[in-house]
């Protein structure tokens, strides 16, 4: 099983495709609280993985680790082959710092629960920001590209509005467009509909779903929308108390879970 802790192994995911995200023996604590306890997981090229489980089970921390916002206490993380917090030297791995992590996380994008748009910028300026200041594109090129991205999420007509003038669903779509600007190979979605009014959830899920079906990006999706997870995921991971307690194709994990913990969790969600 790929989640058995084995720091030395660098096996690709079970699919045989190369692993875009590869975590080995990851542990993370905040003070006394152990958030993740010896997790290993692989996400293959183009694979869509849904992370489910109760609050505080460590799902969000996995995403924050994958993009280097959080540093693991133990274990290694590789993105598209490169170690996030280590550099491979002649005599094994040696720790590397923020500067190195910056380079590696370039191929990872994330959409946050609370959008985190820049409030003093318009939708267009938000999306343009990485194009101008990271890719170094000219104003004209970045505008054209940013307008394309906003059209892709159905917000071309709103590009000159500031976040405060947009609905939550629209803000989240701008955030998705912004995170796509750097053409990430891996996209992370952190409960992207949890902060939205119920009637706005659909438009955001639709955008993510279209993206999942149309692109060969790898995706890690933390969500409480179980039918959505079943629809887009190739594989579902059930988290509980910092461990992966069950994993498999959505048809099995979501419909006919083996682990009683998963069964109870799904039941509780369905009874909401």
């Amino acid at each position, binding site marked *: 099983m790929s989640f058995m802790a084995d720091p030395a192994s660098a096996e690709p995911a079970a699919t045989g495709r190369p692993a875009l995200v590869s975590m080995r023996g990851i542990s993370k604590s905040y003070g006394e609280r152990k958030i993740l306890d010896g997790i290993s997981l692989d996400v293959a090229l183009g694979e869509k993985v849904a992370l489910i489980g109760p609050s505080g089970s460590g799902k969000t921390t996995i995403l924050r680790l994958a993009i280097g916002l959080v540093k693991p206490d133990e274990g290694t993380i590789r993105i598209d082959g490169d170690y996030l917090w280590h550099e491979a030297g002649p005599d094994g791995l040696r720790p590397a710092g923020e500067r190195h992590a*910056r380079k590696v996380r370039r191929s990872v994008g994330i959409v946050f629960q609370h959008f*985190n748009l*820049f409030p003093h910028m318009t939708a267009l300026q938000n999306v343009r920001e990485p194009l101008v200041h990271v890719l170094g594109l000219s104003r004209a090129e970045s505008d054209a590209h940013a307008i394309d991205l906003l059209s892709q999420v159905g917000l071309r007509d709103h590009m000159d509005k500031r976040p*405060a003038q947009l609905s939550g669903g629209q803000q989240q779509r701008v955030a998705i467009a912004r*995170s796509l600007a750097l053409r990430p190979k891996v996209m992370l979605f952190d409960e992207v509909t949890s902060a939205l009014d119920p009637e706005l959830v659909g438009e955001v899920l639709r955008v993510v779903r279209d993206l999942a079906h149309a692109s060969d990006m790898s995706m890690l999706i933390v969500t409480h929308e179980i039918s959505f997870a079943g629809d887009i995921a190739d594989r579902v991971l059930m988290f509980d108390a910092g461990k992966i307690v069950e994993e498999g194709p959505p048809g099995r994990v979501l419909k006919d879970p083996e682990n009683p913990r998963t069964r109870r969790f799904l039941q509780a969600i369905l009874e909401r």
Partner: protein
Amino acid sequence: MSSFHWDWAFAWSIVPALLTGAKITVFATLLGSLLSFVLGLIWTLLRLKRITAITPAVEVFVSFVRGTPLLVQLYFVFYVFPKWGLSMPALVTGIVGLGIYYSATASEIYRAGIEEVAAGQWEAALVLGLPIRRVWLGIVLPQAIKTVLPVLGNQVVAMFKETSLLSTITVIELLAEATSIGSIEFRYVEPLTMAGFFYFIISYTAARGIRRLETEHHVVHG
């Protein structure tokens, strides 16, 4: 107690002299504010940079300045600095004293403004890989400035009133002008009342202006 009597003719006759004093007061306020804004920014940067020895020294300096009375600091610059060979005209001394005193507050205001920028903004900037210069100049400072500007404005108004302390180090500003007229004419009622009125009109107008700026910002940015 002598009977109270307000002499309008006398009151009008001292307006030009009081205006001269008011000009000095406004001048000291503007230059003192400018100095405090610049010094405050320097303190804030040194505090954020976390440089060994320098950052703690700045911290101590800032809390020392905040924790001692402005009047004591003014006396110190006025009486002690010259002993160390640093003599300045009274007005310059006053401006330097005000600038240093309020630079400590300004530094706190800047820091609060920067801290108020949500953690999510830093994270968004970080995961997009924006260069650190851009994060500060393009993301953090533009947001911090919105919360900082009105507070700095209030600080200018506070300093404007505190300039009256400069009269104690021989700067002939508005209050000194009023008391000097009083001592020459043996009438204090008109000069002091008029001086108070001048202070009020100027600070009230300034405060109103700041409030208007604040609400306009809210309208524009939601």
